[in-house]
């Protein structure tokens, strides 16, 4: 793992005042290894064509490359059936797709959806929109003081027979890794359909959708060494087949007449229009790259780095670290520095070449729950090192110095 950073060209660049970039914002988007960038470049240089139609050589090669990427991404999450792997724009679009097709059809007045207060806005707002449209009820699993989901509360909520339970695998603010296998099984016993926001988990640990037995799951390529503009909706084939179509247009149809159409088979039924082909190919190479290193190795490495980061951050006067103990969390740490706004913290660190995130991280309700308006977040990936953590801590001492 100690040479991995050399695979990422951007990490060689200098930023402010000739300082080396120290990138601690991978929970927002990860950097890309050269193999991914090269694969997308090669597609445009050698293979560029539209897929699923032309019979010429380029169209065949592009179609094959696109569908091969689908198979490999499926394999990466334990899914063998390519009908269950839908290419979308990102996690947000994947969740919206489920909200606007399956949920709009299956849920009606006074039906209940269970969510958590640690959801990213992308797994909250689509349900608020649907709830307003269909007169649904939303309810939320309580958080424990150390930032875990209260499973007793969850059990009580399930007695009300929710139609859908949707939750994140890993909080993008607290870092909490939720006990999703158990939660999915509990939901199924209550007769509920489950949706997993896996945007923060699939990039960082081995996740097998079949072992989890989840009904829907969503994640994005750009958080896992792949390009922006492409994500996945995983869904069980029996659910996807029964769902109404999402966007209408080319590729999602089998037959079209002037006043009617017949939808295409899975997965194409949900992929209207020319998809991001180069991005799908890049995404396929990204999962190959991660598999080559090993997801278990990546998870263990990040856990060790996170433990080190928490230990070092707690040395800094005025620092409050949020979230559970390291055994229950993934590779990120949110914190505040007493008397100093997170934006000022991030700005001063930026002057040192250190990139962190400051703000509400698209989780305003969770910040209200913590009693703060914003926080600073350092998030790690396979290319980060202990030296990056040391630089962060040195930077925070400097922040304190500017303000005191």
């Amino acid at each position, binding site marked *: 793992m100690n040479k991995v950073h050399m695979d990422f060209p951007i990490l060689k660049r200098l930023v402010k005042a000739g300082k080396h970039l120290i990138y601690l914002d991978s929970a927002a988007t990860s950097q890309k290894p050269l193999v991914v960038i090269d694969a997308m470049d090669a597609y445009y240089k050698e293979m560029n064509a539209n897929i699923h139609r032309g019979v010429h050589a380029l169209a065949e090669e592009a179609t094959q490359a696109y569908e091969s990427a689908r198979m490999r991404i499926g394999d990466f999450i334990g899914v063998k059936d390519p009908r269950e792997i839908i290419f979308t724009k990102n996690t947000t679009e994947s969740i919206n797709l489920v909200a606007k097709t399956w949920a709009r059809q299956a849920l009606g007045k006074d039906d209940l959806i269970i969510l958590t207060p640690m959801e990213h806005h992308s797994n909250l707002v689509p349900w608020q929109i649907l709830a307003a449209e269909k007169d649904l009820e939303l309810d939320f699993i309580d958080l424990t003081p150390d930032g875990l989901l209260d499973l007793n509360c969850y059990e009580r909520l399930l007695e009300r027979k929710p139609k859908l339970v949707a939750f994140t695998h890993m909080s993008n603010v607290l870092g909490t890794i939720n006990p999703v296998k158990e939660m999915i099984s509990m939901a199924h016993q209550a007769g509920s359909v489950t949706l997993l926001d896996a945007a923060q988990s699939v990039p960082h640990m081995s996740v097998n959708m079949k072992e989890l037995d989840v009904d829907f799951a969503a994640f994005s390529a750009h958080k896992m060494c792949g390009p922006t503009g492409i994500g996945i909706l995983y869904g069980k084939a029996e659910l996807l087949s029964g769902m109404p179509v999402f966007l209408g247009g080319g590729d999602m149809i089998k037959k079209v007449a002037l006043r009617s159409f017949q939808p295409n088979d899975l997965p194409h039924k949900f992929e209207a229009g020319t998809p991001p082909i180069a991005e799908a190919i890049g995404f396929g190479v990204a999962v190959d790259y991660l598999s080559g290193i090993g997801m278990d190795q990546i998870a263990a490495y990040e856990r060790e780095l996170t433990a080190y980061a928490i230990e070092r951050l707690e040395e800094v006067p005025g620092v409050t670290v949020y979230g559970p103990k390291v055994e229950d969390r993934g590779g990120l740490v949110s914190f505040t520095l007493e008397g*100093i*706004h997170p*934006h000022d913290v991030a*700005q*001063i660190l930026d002057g040192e070449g250190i990139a962190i995130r400051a703000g*509400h991280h698209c989780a305003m309700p969770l910040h209200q729950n913590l009693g703060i308006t914003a926080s600073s977040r350092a998030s790690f990936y396979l290319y980060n090192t202990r030296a990056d953590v040391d630089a962060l801590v040195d930077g925070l001492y400097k922040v304190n110095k*500017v*303000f005191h």
Partner: protein
Amino acid sequence: MDDLYREIIVDRYKNPRFKGTIQGGNVNFEDENPLCGDQIRIDLKVDEFGTIVEAAYDGHGCAISQASADLLLESVIGKNVEIVKKMTKQDILDMLGIELGPVRLKCALLPLKVIKAGIYGLKAADDSLVDD
């Protein structure tokens, strides 16, 4: 970087002169920067000639937005509201004495946006209020 946190900005953030409330304010407005949760409320007491005789702000946010509010209020007291309507982005940057990227510019300009929205009696503040 250190230029951004000039002494005047850190000092105004830590020891604001115009933070609080005033009695008998007749112009007030409140807005926030949804990006970072910075929030500013400005109260003005304007006399019958349109002169700002008293001013205060309240809220929370980063050093840039809070210092900008404090410096802005200091500069507007005794001025006519018509002059404040004509204030621009550059006036704020001159007061702060720094250059800012597009993200932090929003923090710096929030107080000007709020005071103008209040003076114009608007229901909602709009970025066009502080566009040059």
